[in-house]
């Protein structure tokens, strides 16, 4: 377990910086300064300026805010709905189980990026569309984990005891079962956030996610591709930020340790 504190601390640091973005006295991430486009590092713009003369450090941090906001809101939505469906399916079984759990297999029939592109075609790109698509895509994962854990926990003595004491079903589900299955669900949440960051940046990279000029790591990589000859570092910063964030999230989850 001692290996795990470092990635956890890194995730916490990124979240803290993203939350504190307005307080850090950064330059306006969307303000253009074409006269100083692609200028290198200098006081006031520590990582230089991009192809429109926007401050790269500021865009990196505001981009983290955007990526994490999208990833966390979609994972929370998917988690809330998925846990509800999984708990109900695992507790009541029967027909509800069929609808709540088996129907999720349909979402898994689609390669995720393609389902996302289909929805973007209909609704147009933007953060709202992203949150909707990502929460649908990560719903099955939460349903499966919550369902499997509920099935194995429901016959335990402490659940029987709560039932024998006459606790209402809602109380058993939320106060007895939920806290006991929270561990695997948190792991699932961490995985969903990491996957959402990857997919959000991928779609933004294709120009179909976050709408410019709002900062996003995927958009920054997209923009820097055109100027990689003159300013290769513009490409390296968002790539590094993205990879480190995902690496830290993966390191957070025990799944990453195969032994």
């Amino acid at each position, binding site marked *: 377990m001692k290996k795990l504190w470092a990635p956890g601390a890194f995730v916490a640091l990124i979240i803290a910086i993203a939350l504190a973005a307005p307080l850090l006295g950064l330059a306006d991430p969307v303000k253009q300064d074409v006269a100083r486009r692609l200028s290198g590092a200098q006081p006031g713009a520590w990582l230089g300026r991009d192809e429109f003369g926007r401050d790269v450090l500021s865009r990196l941090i505001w981009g983290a805010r955007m990526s994490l906001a999208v990833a966390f809101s979609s994972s929370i939505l998917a988690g809330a709905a998925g846990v509800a469906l999984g708990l109900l399916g695992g507790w009541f079984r029967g027909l509800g189980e069929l609808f709540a759990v088996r129907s999720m297999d349909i979402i898994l029939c689609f*390669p995720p*990026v393609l389902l996302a*592109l289909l929805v973007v075609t209909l609704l147009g790109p933007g953060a709202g569309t992203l949150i909707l698509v990502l929460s649908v895509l990560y719903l099955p994962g939460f349903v499966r984990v919550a369902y499997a854990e509920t099935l194995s926990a429901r016959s335990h003595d402490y659940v029987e005891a709560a039932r024998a004491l006459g606790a209402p079903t809602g109380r058993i589900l939320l106060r007895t079962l939920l806290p006991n299955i929270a561990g695997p669900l948190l792991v699932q949440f961490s995985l969903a956030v990491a996957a959402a960051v990857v997919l959000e*940046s991928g779609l933004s990279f*294709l120009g179909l996610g976050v709408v410019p000029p709002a900062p996003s790591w995927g958009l920054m*990589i997209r923009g820097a591709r055109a100027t990689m000859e003159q300013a290769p570092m513009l*490409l*390296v910063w968002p790539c590094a930020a993205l990879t480190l964030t995902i690496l830290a999230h*993966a390191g957070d989850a025990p799944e990453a340790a195969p032994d």
Partner: protein
Amino acid sequence: MTRWLFRRILTSLALAWIVATIVFMTLHLVPGDPAELLLSTGGAATDPAAVAELREKLGLERPLLDQYLSFHSGLTRGDLGNSLVDDYPVASEIALRLPRTLELILAGTALSVVFGMPAGAYAALHRGGRFDRIASATAAFLLAVPVFVLGTLLVLLLAQTLRLMPAGGYTPIAQNPAQHFTLLALPAIAIAKGLAAIVFRMTRASVLDAISRDFVRTARAKGLSPARVLVRHVLRNALTPVLTVLGLQMGTLLGGTVLVEYVFNWPGLSTPLLRAVEARDYPMVVGIVLTISGLFLLINLIMDILYAALDPRVRAS
């Protein structure tokens, strides 16, 4: 085996039907008039004449059931409708580009198996050694780095800075085979990255599991050569979990090809797909999404058949 196979194929067909139905329904499930939605460009009012024309084109005036049936009969005839942008048949566009996407997927899968499996087996047999540590760390990195980031960095490093490889493009194999495969190399590596890492981890874990089993001890005890024990007993038994994981990862792989083709200008299905999403060219998007999802189902079917061929217990159940 025949009965099992028959049932498995039937399941795949049923899933394909469900996928097609879901795709058909997405257009009608979103609130509001689909035609108006497709023409809307943030805030600005849509032109009623254009909306009426699009409704006509997509057949939205007809009863829903009627639309659904003609959508399905079109699918069985291989007719996916025409592009809204240039009226070109969607199926012809797909027929032209699908082989190129398939080539990329095949090359990527082959690369990941060729590198991932031996590396995984070697790492397991020399567990904790230098190779194991380096390869495991590399796998963790490859899993974390998004496919388009790796692709872009490969271009930056190998094409832009070192000038070893072309940055991207495509040459038909009939025209210049050498150049064709040079251009295939980088996108195939980018596609293979995640899969190779997963194959590596799975092989390592299942070889580690297999070498401690009784049947391996027995095989050794009866005097089989170490190489024969490894190939016939350890690797054969380690293969099934690897196949399962390959099947499970195909969705991510197919999604990854969209990004990789874009990074390397590989003219597969992703070019018309992205152009169509941007232009809100609904029939084109639906055609390509259905094709790739169908491919996904087909690959999973093939994986399951291979799985059953390797492991008799699957057929029996």
